[in-house]
């Protein structure tokens, strides 16, 4: 093993306080600065039960719709068999043949049908629709429909699949030269499985026929204009014949990014046929069985470190399982590839990624969007290098991390808003990382001594719980990848109506994160008025412009910037007309001059460009940065991992509303705790086995650690408020910190998520057998365990 020649200071002795210099940075913007924050705008409705979610809405005369789904992973579809003893005149049954437009759910590729025709490609694939005037008849009709099929050979292993959805390769420097320089080469393979978004409100959609022959959709969704595009295409409607309105939405996390499109098509097909509103409300079992999950992935790393402990080469290969249809897989993979190296500068890098098709339900968007999978792998790799070098993992990261002027694998120069060092310092300090790590090492040494005495491998007869502390660092590209925002060309509006009401017009949805609360704040500040004077227009595609999807942590950052610019122009217009401050003149201006509406379209950031073909250039206009320190306790008898606390320091550019921003960090942290420890989707023959909430577990209040959210502000100059988004960052960073903490506690690396008791126990057994020298296992021991 090579040694690090660099400084070996302990952070406790001499805290690494890195000067945060920002050469040539624009003056810190004042818009959106943290200040006493207004209460959640729709909070009272949510707290009194008055808020109306889709299933709470009454549509007189509505029928109930249901989906007939495949029970096979791959089959030829020969037809439907309807039980002749049932009165089919009382219900409506529809198949692919009844679709008036294209049988395609509009997305990146044109491969996913709204209803399977000819071939079934995954379990729970929609094959037919049925609607009935009441639930009992619907239940009975569903029971009387059988699918006639002929089995086909399925593919379940993405590594064995020969159908590729997308592949990307990035390289920088000279990989061979990099590895030739390396004194230490560490290789690793990491695996992550499906994760279910598990919003507590299931997917829900109601379609109502319109007098113009079109359809109005009311439902639970993140992206009304995605639904609009899908609906007009499948039902062959004009733009004005499809009106999409968002009901109060009980969580999304990416799970309501693309899936609502297919559900809206289904409800609309039935509503058009029945001539009445049709309700399609999933129960939990159907929701878990059929909707998208986080992509499983296998990530392989080869890392070269030179004799001075510098990172000199990274060779990374990613394989993602896309499931049966493409959905958003290419962009998930793209984000994965772009984040795979982690927040560390390396002169010689090769990152290759591919996403393969399997006969499993399609995977899709989930908070983090490809980054949590690869950053788990990248951080474990760094942790293992630190372990082999015998240096503090925090110190190694502090040496390797990006600083201003750093160059990423795509050749992007990080000119501003780089806070990797700052988040690391803040988290390390707040969690007293080095001191606690010292204590857990002492505890482990005592335990091992006792165990050796007793001849019991890593377990002691007297100590049954092992404490550990772990750390991870992450980056998350802000907004859409590459030229995504340029292509979207989003438009947001601010209007002063003739009745003096000021409204923000955006298609971005409130899904818990606080959209309805922060936009009045941003507009009001630009207008010089109180947020209470600004209203939000209803999210209805016949009213609001397409300000793009509510995804990619882009709402506060990109759409927030558009709204501020529109409000600034509105203010200037009114003040020029009245010669008085907006706050004093707008009501009179509206009365005299009528309505004024300003629509602001996204304008490309100057000097930010990305080549989608060569994958070179500025992959993102800016990055958010996060560091998490997790403390765990591992039960040495059961293998159970209890996450005690997590400190997460997140640089989000600018804090608009501290309570809402902390809420994002805390919530994302717990989803990552679930990802790291208990959330495991078991798949057998392409079917999710634990497709209920009693079998797919998410953390309860008893599982949740004590979470400390530290908000760091390193503003992005491309937006007037400097915000970079907050939703996804915490999801990227926490799982590897927990796995590092498990290693700190017991000395074993868990390379597959989640770290279930079975995996932890098995790693402990392997470790014990290595100790006894009875097996040729390759798990490394902790530094003090090395001979």
């Amino acid at each position, binding site marked *: 093993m090579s040694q690090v020649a660099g400084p070996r200071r302990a952070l406790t002795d001499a805290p690494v306080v890195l000067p945060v210099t920002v050469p040539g940075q624009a003056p810190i913007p004042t818009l959106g600065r943290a200040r006493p924050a207004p209460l959640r705008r*729709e909070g009272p409705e949510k707290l*009194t*039960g008055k808020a109306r979610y889709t299933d709470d809405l009454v549509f007189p005369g509505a029928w109930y719709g249901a989906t007939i789904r495949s029970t096979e992973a791959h089959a030829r579809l020969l037809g439907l068999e309807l039980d002749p003893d049932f009165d089919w005149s009382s219900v409506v049954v529809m198949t692919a043949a009844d679709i008036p437009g294209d049988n395609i759910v509009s997305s990146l590729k044109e491969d996913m049908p709204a209803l399977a025709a000819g071939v079934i490609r995954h379990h729970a694939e929609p094959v037919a629709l049925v609607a009935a005037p009441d639930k009992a008849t619907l239940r009975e009709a569903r029971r009387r429909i059988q699918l006639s099929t002929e089995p086909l050979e399925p593919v379940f292993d993405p590594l064995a699949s020969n159908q590729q959805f997308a592949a990307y390769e990035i390289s920088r420097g000279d990989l061979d030269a990099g590895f030739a320089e390396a004194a230490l080469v560490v290789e690793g393979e990491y695996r992550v499985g499906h994760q279910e978004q598990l919003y507590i409100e299931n997917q829900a959609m109601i379609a109502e026929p319109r007098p113009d022959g079109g359809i109005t959709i009311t439902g639970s969704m993140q992206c009304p204009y995605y639904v609009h595009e899908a609906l007009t295409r499948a039902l062959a409607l004009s733009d004005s014949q499809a009106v999409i309105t968002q009901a109060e939405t009980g969580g999304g996390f990416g799970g309501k990014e693309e899936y609502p499109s297919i559900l809206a098509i289904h409800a609309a097909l039935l509503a058009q046929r029945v001539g009445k509103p049709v309700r399609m409300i999933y129960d939990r079992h159907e929701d878990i069985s059929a909707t998208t999950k986080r992509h499983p992935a296998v990530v392989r790393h080869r890392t070269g470190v030179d004799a001075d402990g510098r990172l000199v080469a990274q060779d990374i290969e990613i394989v993602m399982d896309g499931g049966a249809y493409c959905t958003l897989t290419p962009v998930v993979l793209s984000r994965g590839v772009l984040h795979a190296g982690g927040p560390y500068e390396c002169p010689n890098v090769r990152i290759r990624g591919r996403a393969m098709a399997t006969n499993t339900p399609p995977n899709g968007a989930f908070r983090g969007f490809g980054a949590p999978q690869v950053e788990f792998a990248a951080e474990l790799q760094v942790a293992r290098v630190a372990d082999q070098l015998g240096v503090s993992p925090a110190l190694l990261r502090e040496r390797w991390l990006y600083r201003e002027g750093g160059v990423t694998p795509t050749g992007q120069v990080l000119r501003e808003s780089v806070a990797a060092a700052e988040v690391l310092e803040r988290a390390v300090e707040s969690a007293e990382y080095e001191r606690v790590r010292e204590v857990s090492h002492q505890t482990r040494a005592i335990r091992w001594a006792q165990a050796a005495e007793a001849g019991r491998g890593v377990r002691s007869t007297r100590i049954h719980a092992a404490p550990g502390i772990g750390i991870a660092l992450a980056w998350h590209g802000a907004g859409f990848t590459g030229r995504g925002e340029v292509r979207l060309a989003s438009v947001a509006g601010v209007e002063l109506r003739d009745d003096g009401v000021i409204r923000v017009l955006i298609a971005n949805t409130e899904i818990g994160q606080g959209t309805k609360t922060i936009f009045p704040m941003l507009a009001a500040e630009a207008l010089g008025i109180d947020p209470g004077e600004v209203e939000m227009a209803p999210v209805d595609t016949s009213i609001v412009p397409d300000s793009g999807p509510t995804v990619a942590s882009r709402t506060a950052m990109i759409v927030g910037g558009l709204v501020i610019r529109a409000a600034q122009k509105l203010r200037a217009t009114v003040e020029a007309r009245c010669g008085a401050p907006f706050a004093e003149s707008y009501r009179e201006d509206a009365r005299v001059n009528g309505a004024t509406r300003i629509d602001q379209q996204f304008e490309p950031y100057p000097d930010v460009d990305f080549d989608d073909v060569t994958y070179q250039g500025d992959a993102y206009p800016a990055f958010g940065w996060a560091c998490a320190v997790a403390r765990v306790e591992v039960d040495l008898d059961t293998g159970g991992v209890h996450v005690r606390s997590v400190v997460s320091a997140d640089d989000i550019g600018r804090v608009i509303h501290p*309570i809402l921003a902390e809420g994002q960090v*805390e919530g994302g942290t*717990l989803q990552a705790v679930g990802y790291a420890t208990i959330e495991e989707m078991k798949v057998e023959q392409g079917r999710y086995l634990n497709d209920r909430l009693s079998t797919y577990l998410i953390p309860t*209040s008893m599982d949740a650690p004590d*979470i400390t959210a530290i908000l760091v502000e390193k503003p992005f100059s491309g937006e007037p408020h400097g915000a970079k988004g907050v939703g996804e960052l915490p999801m990227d960073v926490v799982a590897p910190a927990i796995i590092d903490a498990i290693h700190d506690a017991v000395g074993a690396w868990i390379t597959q998520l989640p770290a279930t008791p079975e995996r932890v126990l098995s790693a402990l057994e392997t470790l014990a057998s290595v100790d006894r020298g009875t097996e040729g296992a390759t798990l490394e021991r902790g530094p003090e365990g090395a001979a």
Partner: protein
Amino acid sequence: MTAVREPVSGDTSYRFSVNGEAREVAVPGMRRLLDVLREDLGLTGTKEGCGEGECGACSVIVDGLVVDSCLVPVCQVDGSDVRTVEGLSDAQTEALNPLQQAFLEAGGAQCGICTPGMLMAAQAYLDAGGGSDEEDIRSAIAGNLCRCTGYTKIIEAIELAALERGGRA
């Protein structure tokens, strides 16, 4: 939800109070209390998240105890006192009660779908004399899943409400 269902043969009449108001429904005895509240009484504040007693979104208080209304057949609440989220705020002024106010100020509600059930579990805890101890609060809401908040600000809100009540006592 739909309009109030029409009575059919086999229905039985059940009387109970909901948020202090006497109610009577004629339904099959095994009809879920959740459906009676949402569909027959139009009280849609109580939500369904899983239908099998795992998530707690449908939590209501029956005779002082928090229950999952998706697991309770209506015949079991005959003669009982049922409280739902709609009964928490002041009936006349609609002012939020101290627990709801604490949730609003602390940021305890995000998407809001778990909130009614979470409030009922927390209210039952406070009504039973529960204090501001964090571990006690965690176990009081252990049957209520939230996917947005990490529970941090929910726990803070309940602590606040408990402390405020303590101050007044």
